[in-house]
């Protein structure tokens, strides 16, 4: 599911988490869960970017053939 979640939404969620942490809106009890989520979001987004890059490269390569 995470892969299909829209990149932009994930980035937004990530930013919210970070802002909440910064603002100490997150309880220490929830902190590690939130960080875990943030890490997951980061991984997802990075994967999306890598994927996109690969795809674009492939398209361009294909085009030149």
């Amino acid at each position, binding site marked *: 599911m995470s892969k299909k979640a829209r990149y932009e939404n994930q*980035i937004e969620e990530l930013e919210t988490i*970070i802002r909440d942490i910064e603002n100490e809106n997150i309880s220490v009890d929830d*902190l590690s869960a939130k960080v875990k989520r*943030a890490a997951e979001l*980061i991984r997802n*987004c*990075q994967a999306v*970017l890598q994927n996109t*890059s690969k795809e674009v490269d492939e398209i*361009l390569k294909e085009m030149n053939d």
Partner: protein
Amino acid sequence: MSDERTYENTPAAPRKIFALSQLAESIRVQIDRTFSGSYWITAEISKLNHYPQSGHCYPQLVEKKSGQIVADFRAFILNSRFREINAKFAAATGQTLTDGMQMLCRCKVSFHAVYGLSLNIVDVEPSYTLGEMARMRQEALEKLKKEGIFSQNKSLALPILIRRLAVISVETSKGYHDFTDILAKSAYPDATKIRLFPALLQGDAAVGSIVSALEKIKKVAGQFDAVTIIRGGGGEVGLDCYDNYEMGRAVCTFPLPVITGIGHATNLTVVEQVAHKNLITPTDLARFITDGFTRFGNRIESAIRSLSIFRKGSLQVQIANLRQFDFILQKAIKGRQIKEKSALLNISRKGVTAAQAAMREAQKNLRIRYPQQLADVVHQQIRTRSNQINNQKSALGHLTDATLKSRSHLVQILSEKVKLLDPANTLKRGYSLTLSGGKIVRNADNLQPGDQLETIFAKGRAESTVKKTRP
């Protein structure tokens, strides 16, 4: 000769009574004495009176002034002297002594009882006569010029063919004979028709004779192309009549061209000068006329020749030229087609080159520029996003760490606070707690002497009573 001797040997006359012969003799002596020398005189020979048999000559000499005779003498020239003088004269002037001639002569005065007074001419100066003749000719010419008719006959047109000719000549003369002979023998013997008008051709009488012949011709001038005056063969003397003004005038004003053939002279006579043409000899004149026909005949022949040459070739050349047009036309068409084809080819080539260049440019955009741009912006985008995520990542670390640290710090503070508040720690430093009724006493005012106090130490407790309180 015997006569001469008679004059000279007359004896002297007797006195008192004189025979006629005696008087004559006396006059003769006087004259001989007075006019013993010889004298140069000028005079006109009114009549020469030459007697061919004896050879003597008895000229009548006159002097005229304004047409009137003012002196008139008989003269004689003895045979032997005459021959000598005449030869010398002819050599110098081209003429012999003749009637009407002006001359300068040396003479002796001679008187004879029978023949009377006469002048014995012993010498003649021809240069004087020559001068006189020239003067007369000059006078005639100047007069004609003054009258404006000098060139009149010359200005008439002479036809190139003289077919009808009036001839002034003498039928028996050699000149006329030569003339007709040449015409008859020419290539065109019938071409020229001649009519003879006879006239005297030399001497004083010639003037009137020729002028009257001209008058006769003038009346039928329409029948002729030209008039000729033909004289000659033989003597070249007696031509001075052609210097006559009257004859000159008649020639000048004649309505037909006058052609002269009157022989050789040292100087051209007046008539020869004013004539339309002077050909000198009758032979030359005849040739001149026949030459005209020959030239005309040649022109006809040449025309015929040209025509037949033309007939042989000219149109053939034209026909051949016309045939050339086939080739020229073909060449022009071929040339044109080649030109058009090459023009078309050029245009096409230009078009192809231009189109190829335009396509190359477009292709370059499509193959290189746009893909490159696309790759650049996509990668840039991905890089930016990656950086953003990395930033978030590190922010996550930092912020989490900070949060935990801040929490830790808070717990630490609370822990310190609890430590400070824990009485056990105060007691350890020597302080003690005072209790009254089990409650911690902070104010002495609340105590009464006698109140039971319990004191708690770090180690152990003690009980006491209040004695006194102070504020």
